[in-house]
């Protein structure tokens, strides 16, 4: 296999990205091992979203390399020379990476069940019967077994985000990326989504989660990475980074977070 035992599932080295001369990522290194949950913290504009989007190629990186499960993302390495992959090959790399967005991005013209079934049928060409059964199981798992025929517009934000999680899981990803999955939710709906994510973490899913939910990071994360200004400032187990931060920027950020709520 491409991924020898012990090699990280996500191996990012010196990832750089700029938008029109604005350096947003200035050399990020990150390793995430299989089954780990990594929480990405940092102030607004520090590049957390951009880094997540680079992992599944929604953004093209300018420097560095990202490997997911041994595959170099976005390029083929032919004797030291990188060749950009075709759109089709990049789409194939994305299949194994699930992504959950801040604003859910469910397909509003499709029912909940159709949302979950869309990609396995269209992308993987799996038999419809099988996909439907799996979709119903996933909906039950996220607590929405009674809503397959509803349209996303008829659901609450928390319900929509749980459907979005089920939709991503339907592709049986190796890795799940969450970009502030609860920050667009009313406070009373945050808990149900975090519970779903906790349960997912318990199944051994590898997850990278951008979040401002310190409780979730402290309880669920194996490792916390604190980013600021496009670099990793501090990282380690939550007991160290959250409870006893060393870097001044981490300290300031955490103090502001806990004061805010």
């Amino acid at each position, binding site marked *: 296999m491409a991924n020898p035992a012990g090699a990280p599932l996500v191996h990012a080295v010196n990832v750089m990205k700029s938008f029109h001369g604005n350096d947003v990522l200035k050399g990020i290194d990150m390793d995430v091992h299989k089954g780990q949950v990594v929480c990405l913290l940092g102030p607004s504009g520090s590049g957390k979203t951009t880094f997540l989007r680079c992992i599944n190629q929604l953004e093209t990186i300018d420097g560095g390399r990202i490997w997911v499960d041994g595959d170099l993302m976005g390029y083929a390495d032919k004797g030291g020379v990188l060749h950009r992959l075709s759109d089709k090959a990049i789409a*194939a790399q994305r*299949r194994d990476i699930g992504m959950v*967005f801040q604003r859910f991005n469910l397909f*509003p*013209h499709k029912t909940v069940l159709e949302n979950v079934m869309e990609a396995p049928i269209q992308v993987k060409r799996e038999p419809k019967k099988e996909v439907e059964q799996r979709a119903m199981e996933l909906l039950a798992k996220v607590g929405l077994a009674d809503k397959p025929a509803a349209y996303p517009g008829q659901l609450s934000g928390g319900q929509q985000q749980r459907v979005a999680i089920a939709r*991503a899981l339907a592709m049986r990803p190796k890795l799940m990326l969450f970009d502030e999955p609860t920050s667009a939710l009313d406070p009373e709906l945050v808990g149900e989504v975090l519970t779903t994510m906790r349960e997912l973490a318990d199944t051994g899913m590898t997850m990278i989660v951008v979040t401002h939910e310190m409780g979730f990071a402290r309880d669920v994360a194996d490792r916390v990475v604190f980013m600021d200004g496009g670099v990793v400032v501090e990282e380690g187990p939550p007991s160290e980074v959250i409870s006893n931060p060393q870097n001044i920027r981490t300290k300031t950020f955490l103090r502001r977070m806990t004061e805010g709520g």
Partner: protein
Amino acid sequence: MSTPAAGSGSPAPSAATVDRPGVINARPVRHPWRWVAIAVILVLVAMMISSLVTNPKWDFGFAFQIMQQTPVLEGLWKGTIFGTIASMILGVGLGVVLAVMRLSDNPVLRAVAFAYTWFFRAMPRYVLLAILGSLGFLYAQIRFGVPFGQQIASSLGLSTDLTFFGFSWNDISSTIWVGVIGLGLSEAAYMAEIARAGILSVDKGQDEAARALGMSSGQRMRRIVLPQAMRVIVPPTGNETIAMVKDTSLLTAVPVLTELYYQAYLFGQRGFKIIPGFVAATLWYLIICSILMVGQSYLEKYFGRGFGAIPKKTKEKLMKIEADH
């Protein structure tokens, strides 16, 4: 249940009720000018009706007869209705393709789509149809084959001229097909703008979510973006269809004479009663367009499922495209 203790029964609160304002029974604002306007309109309508009834030149009886004549009905079906449907199919299909080209990353496709839209928007339909009808003078034979096939074949001394198939333009030059090609090509330029506004109205997050699931660009466009764009595309397309019904009267430029207006006009002229011919055509146009408007409202409901209202900005953009006609 009995009345609450604090009700009107006890004397003290009752005294207070007298002072406190009760139900409002105000005089409404008067709109005297509205009544004036109604009066003026009523008079005008009465004058129109009286002229319709008393002026024998209208001759509605003859108009109804014209409406039912076989050549007129044939013009209605084979010219106006078939022409509208076929031109709109060509126009919508090509228009969506042009819109996708216009929005693609490929600069060549973008430029081609832009040039197409520019040319066909600037070209009056009447002139376009007349030119297509006379194209036989320019290109008597239309051939599909290897580019410069004749030159290549003669220089190599081949017996064939590398043409796969061809036809004479004059064979089709006064058929409805030339009209459909002309109207459809012209319509595509407008539909391209409408489809583009529709595609742009779909939230970028939709395409990204589909991308993150590993869907190809074709799948994303067909299954995620276009169905959502339809809600914005359908209402103006209904208007375009209604406009197309009326534009089929331009088919005489080709000339295609099996068409409602010309046939109705011809009948009026032959009977030395021009006006009833116009009335007959008008009534048919009113009937078709009314039916189309009903159909349009059903389509809007269908594609609006799962959504709220169309964003205001998109609506304004579409109004502008239509006003350009």
